């Protein structure tokens, strides 16, 4: 339930510690961040600074070790696993670096999948999936398997899958990482269009060219936000 007077996402003192073989990794150490509805945020930083960890927590795939996360004003820590799954399904659209399409399913079925989990009636499901595929210009490949598509096409399918459920926020972890520049640019333009239509987008990239597309560029270093550059400044950079 988005509301204009509250930020869509609010993080306070967020920490994430991984415990492995007698070693603690502080992936995130005290993140404060607010993202409003309609924002287009890009997160950058060197490898291992905690970008993916942050995105996973934003997308409710993972939980913070410490700190608070409010989503649409609700403290996320209080959610049950069922509610978390429901929010992942309805509010969040995920785009992964490695596409993560399911090889056994056709392109169309991949796009349809989150809608099935949402329990949409068949007709509506099919319509939404078709529209999403149209959107990324891949309707003609609906019955193909992912393995029969190029990398750029696969990532466009992943975008279609993410937006088919009309999520309130799109999270993308280096969506262009496995693509050449032409295909990468195409995906970014797609995100731009979605943003113009009002989508809230949060993208991890360390490619400055792509970071430019965002309104806000957040720099992470060692698990902390070290800098936030508004779009104008970023463009000037």
């Amino acid at each position, binding site marked *: 339930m988005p509301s204009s007077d509250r930020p869509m996402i609010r993080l306070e003192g967020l920490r994430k510690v991984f415990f492995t073989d007698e070693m603690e990794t502080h992936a995130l150490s005290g993140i404060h961040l607010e993202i409003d509805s309609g924002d287009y945020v890009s997160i950058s930083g060197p490898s291992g600074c905690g970008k*993916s960890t942050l995105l*996973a927590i934003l*997308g409710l*795939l*993972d939980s913070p070790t410490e700190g608070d996360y409010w989503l649409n004003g609700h403290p996320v820590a209080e959610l049950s*696993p*069922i509610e978390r*799954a*429901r*929010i*992942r*399904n*309805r509010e*969040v659209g*995920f785009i*992964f*670096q*490695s596409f*993560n399409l*399911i*090889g*056994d399913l056709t392109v169309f079925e991949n796009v349809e*999948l*989150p809608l099935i*989990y*949402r329990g949409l009636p068949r007709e509506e499901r099919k319509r939404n999936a078709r529209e999403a595929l149209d959107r990324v210009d891949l309707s003609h490949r609906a019955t193909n398997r992912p*393995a029969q598509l190029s990398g750029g096409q696969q990532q466009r399918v992943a975008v279609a*899958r993410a937006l088919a*459920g009309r999520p309130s926020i799109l999270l993308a*972890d280096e969506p262009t990482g496995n693509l050449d520049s032409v295909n990468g640019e195409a995906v970014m333009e797609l995100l731009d269009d979605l943003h113009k239509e009002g989508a809230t987008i949060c993208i991890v990239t360390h490619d400055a060219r792509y970071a430019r597309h965002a309104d806000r560029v957040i720099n992470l270093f060692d698990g902390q936000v070290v800098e936030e550059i508004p779009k104008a400044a970023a463009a000037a950079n």
Partner: protein
Amino acid sequence: MDNFLQDLRYGARALIKNPGFASVAVIALALGIGANTAIFSVVNAVLLRPLPYQNPDQLVMVWETSLARGLERNPASPVNYADWREQKQIFDHIAGWWYPQINLTDDYGEPERVRTIDVTDEFFSVFGVQPLLGRTFLQGEDRRDAEPVVVLSYNLWQRRFGGDASIVGKAIRLDGTPYSVIGIMPAGFSFPEDIEVWRPLGWDPTQHSRNARFFDVVARLKPDVTIERAQAEMTALARRFEKEYPQSNTDWGVTLVGLHDQIVGRVRPALLVLLGAVGFVLLIACANVANLLLVRAGAREKEVAIRMALGAGRFRLIRQFLTESVLLAMLGGALGLALAFLGGRLLMAINPIDIPRADEAGIDLRILGFTLAVSLLTGLIFGIVPALQFSRPDLNSTLKEGGRESRAGSSGRRIRSALVVSEIALALMLLVGAGLLLKSFFRLQGVNPGLNPANVLTLNLQLPFSNYSDWRQVSNFYAQLTDRIEALPGVTSADVTGFLPLESGWRLRFAIPDRPPTPPGEELVAQYHQVSPGYFRTLGIRLLAGRELTDHETADSPGVVIINEAMARRYFPDEDPVGKRLTSSVRSIGPLARYLPATIEYEIVGIAGNVKNDGLGRAVEEAIYFSHRQFPYRSMSLVIRTNASPLSLLGAVRDEIWAMDKALPVSDVKTMEELLADSMAESRFSTLLLGLFAALALVLASVGIYGVLSYSVAQRKHEIGIRMALGAGQGDILKMVVGQGLVLVAIGLVTGAAAAFGVTRLIRTLLYEVSATDTETFVIVSLLLGAVATLASYIPARRATKVDPMVALRCE
């Protein structure tokens, strides 16, 4: 050879490296192979091993057959036997016997009933078995005036005489008469069954009526005579006799049955069914292990690809894998052999039924060979699938497919699914079989025996001729004895009968004098029982019409009988039998007849409810109840209704018996409930065993489906993570994995049901009032298997819901 040893070393090392895999596989195989070995050892002893007689294939039983009367293997008339003896062109030796009931009394111990047969002189020559000590019977020693001699069994000699060799030449007393012991048979010879004393016949077979058929006959065919030829000649002879002796031989043929067939024919179907069942269990175990191997093959695919890239030949690789699987199977076989040995011991300890010859079961070279062969074959069967699957020279696609969607993950998945489907199908077939037997068993248990079996003690007495030569003495003895027992505290009533319920009695011919005489071959026949008046009340048998017998009916008063309901319906369908008359010639019932009056007329005074007299699963045969005072019998069973636990009164009852005659053995002590249970022992035993194997199949198949799904969940972790990232709830994941299992189960159930539909026909002979395609059983068993398989799917499905959606983010 060098290569083989190297393969062996590799194989052993691979197993040691994977102790979990190895032990699961070995246990599954041991269960399968052990069950096979156990059943095969019984099959070997009972069906395969030759009988312990000289040239046993030449031995036949000679029966008289009257299909018109529904009698397939009937004892022969001694007169016919005497004529058969002349067929020297067919038989080398031929011998007959009948069962007298004999009490052994001597100075060595308590009086006891010993299993005795009276045999003709050629009896031992038929078998060609030499005595351990002394000699067997000489020609002519079976005549009436011959010296009284006996041959003893090894068991009796050990049990009663402590193996004292000097007993040969000494005398023992049978029914009070001294007989000198002339020989001891070797251990293991107790033909026809558990016989302890063989006594010469002592009467002339030709002196009987051809109508009296009570003589069992065994013969040795001449070496060049086949059983078919002998059968043809005997049939021709029987035809001639029909013409020559129409009064006695109309519609009577002769049937020769190979002795081996005769002894084991009854249990053969059940044993073969069990052998088939354990074969199925082994196949399921094989499928399980093949699945495990496939999984492991997947894990080792890279290693194999590298080896092949280095030039290892396909054959070389297949051999390597087969060596490993055969090694596994051998380990399973060794453990299975131990299981079979222990299981066999346990089975024999329970001693559920007398399977003929089963006591000869044990581990011998043939069993070892069988186990070895089964293990080898098993290893090849479950090893060949992964070996082939794995060594397909398709390196390119291995590289292209990369790590995740590898061959072991895609076409391997299909093979694994197919294996699980067949496991489910096989398990269903076994479960259906077991279910049908169980239902039969319950049906049988639900059969109304026609009496009230609770709190009834039964035991058998035999009055020896030497002390009770007058039959009035016999009936007075039993009348007095029942009076004395009835006076005991705890006893409600006591009576006697010539034949107990469920114990097929003997038959006699009768006629209905008001009706035209029946033509030869269509004589009226019924079972007969001699009972004391209170018999029906004591056993709770209903009286449907007329009156009971009374104490006033004696040898001197007019004859009266009670007939059973079956007889009333068959012979008096439209009239009231009470008041009608029967005549019977008791001379037709064997050597006893000389102590009994000839034809007598009897009045039917009552109709008794049907009592199962041929076994619980059989239709009730027509029966006539005589008063024991009018048709006395030396061997009678006491039936004693008590108001306490029946066996607790045994001591007091025995004291009453011995107070009347100290030398009288009390035998066959049983409660009526035990008698009923005994009659179902065979059904219980095959149900139990098949149930056991079906349960084993159920467990193995569940482990199979569990294994396949567990592996699949492990393989699909990433995919499951993606699904969860897309918002799949735990319920969705649970449904997906269980659903995957259920699809396999459903296909397996449909296939198995179709196959069972065709196969259960084979156990039809073991079923009682249950169709081999009984819908209820098919449905219930499918539901059971489906439920267990769902449970087995649920565990890996639970595990799938615990997948961390974070895996979706990692690219492996």
